[in-house]
């Protein structure tokens, strides 16, 4: 039984000429697993995170359903306009880490106090002692909890701020952690430190993880399953191991080829120069202008979903064959 499942999530603007940010997205997150969401800039990765927490602006129209299921708590959301439904989820069941860690913290409050605020809400406003916060900090891997306790966010280095943001998210005792590009500002060494700690925390607190990234190497090495987005469409949702060995969607195939040449330090061959304009949806396959397999059919309607094995699927008329 998945801990979180999203069915047919669509997000559109409510304008006179509606644009679509996400169209018909479905995926599941199994307990204890890591789901990586990949896709180019503007594909809608952050929009998915915000939709799950119900923090998208009111100017957007959201359709679809979401089921959260963890031990005794079961929440189904079919109407995104009703904010109250999300209140029991935010922070205490599902926590979100933003890319800009330091920027997402309160600059005027010491880290220790911010953790206290969150712990209080999680523990129904019982008073929290300083010692319990220090204990929590050392449990989340800080060697000098006292220094962190007394620091203001701006006094932390980039890497340290990310670690504190992780601790802040964990203070609410969530079951699902959504990390929106947490390592994109870190160098290779600090990034590895962060990912290592994330893995330890995931085990320790029995978390399920949604990992948003634009780093394919990280997605491939970290995740159990991968959702590939392209211009607001889910084009492929697969187990990571399967995706690596036999991508079905041509976009996924192109992505992996690109990755291989960068990994081997070769300048990739000519790619389509056309730069996608976000939210600009045509009726056909979103990849048809760049796809080497496209036919007239692809330009007309969005290709139907081909289910490989529930819940995994891809959407393409002429999928890649296994090499």
């Amino acid at each position, binding site marked *: 039984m998945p801990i979180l499942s999203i069915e047919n999530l669509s997000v559109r603007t409510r304008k006179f000429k509606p644009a679509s940010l996400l169209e018909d997205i479905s995926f599941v997150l199994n307990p204890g697993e890591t789901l990586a969401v990949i896709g*180019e800039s*503007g594909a809608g990765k952050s929009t998915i995170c915000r939709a799950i927490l119900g923090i998208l602006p009111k100017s957007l129209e959201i359709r679809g359903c979401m089921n959260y299921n963890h031990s005794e708590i079961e929440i189904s959301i079919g109407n995104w306009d009703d904010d109250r439904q999300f209140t029991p989820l935010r922070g205490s069941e599902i926590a979100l880490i933003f890319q800009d860690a330091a920027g997402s913290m309160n600059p005027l409050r010491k880290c220790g106090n911010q953790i206290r605020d969150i712990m209080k809400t999680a523990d129904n406003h019982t008073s929290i002692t300083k010692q319990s916060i220090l204990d929590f900090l050392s449990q989340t891997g800080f060697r000098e909890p006292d220094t962190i306790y007394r620091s203001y966010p701006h006094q932390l280095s980039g890497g340290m701020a990310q670690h504190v943001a992780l601790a802040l998210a964990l203070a609410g005792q969530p079951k699902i952690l959504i990390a929106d590009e947490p390592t994109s500002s870190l160098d290779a060494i600090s990034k590895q430190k962060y990912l290592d700690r994330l893995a330890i925390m995931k085990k320790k607190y029995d978390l399920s993880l949604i990992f948003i990234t*634009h780093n394919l190497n990280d997605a491939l090495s970290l995740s159990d399953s991968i959702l590939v987005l392209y211009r607001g469409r889910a084009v492929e949702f697969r187990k990571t191991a399967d995706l*690596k060995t036999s991508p079905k969607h041509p976009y996924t195939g192109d992505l992996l080829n690109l990755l291989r040449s*960068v990994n081997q330090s070769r300048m990739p061959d000519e790619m389509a120069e056309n*730069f996608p*304009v976000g939210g600009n949806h045509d009726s056909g396959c979103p990849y048809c202008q760049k796809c080497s397999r496209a036919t007239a059919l692809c330009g007309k309607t969005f290709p139907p979903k081909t289910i490989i094995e529930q819940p995994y699927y891809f959407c393409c008329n002429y999928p890649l064959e296994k090499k």
Partner: protein
Amino acid sequence: MEQKDKNRPILSVSNLTIDYAFYRVGPFSAQHHAAVENVSFKVYPGDCFAIVGESGCGKTSILNAILGFVRPKNGAIFYNEQNLLTMARREFRLYRPEIQPVFQDFHNALNPRFRIIEILKESLRICSRKDISIEELIAVVGLGTDILNYFPHQLSGGQKQRIVIARALIPKPQLLLLDEPVSSLDITVAVQIIKLLKNLRKKENLTFLLVSHNLPIIRLLANRIAIMKNGHIFEEKPTEDLFETPEHPYTRALVNQALISCQSYQ
């Protein structure tokens, strides 16, 4: 100024020391920990010189010093053999348009209250450029006219980065200072931006000084790499030499980590 002698550095930084006791301002993210200590390097015309190191190691401070946003404690910065640090303000203002920054924080680099077309028009007006239309300008960075009426928040990261690059090109710069130009972009877009920068460097005769922490991608663009940590440059080499014979332990760790992450898919 216009002479382009390949053997004469366009930028020469020598014994630069920056102390942050008093200066914590600048357009790039504020640096609180690392000062820069005794850093020297030379950038030749047409080069793409990359400084690689972790966040907060002092990379951005060097760029801020070149732009005149912080006053170094010691050292000299020669731009075409003129010392930027000792010249008069008035003279500095003459040189300054030739050196253009491309911000790391490009999400905030564009004023959110103006449409893209207004942002670019304003820059064209300030630089009194009448020889290029907005349409031509955004075509240079590979964008279509449809985005002109958008506000910055409606653009994707890659689109914003292209707009920021387009704006930096308006004053006809010689030297572009790029702070993490691709680190927050995904691979397809990063590769496109790298290609765009490579082409621009040739077409517009530009020289790049860029700072980054992403070795695998920077490897595709830079011809020289300097490795920086805690305010010092430890090692500086042509790109391929650095990957083949990293000397300093930190360089080796960095190169190794980069190569390991590359092994997830070969």
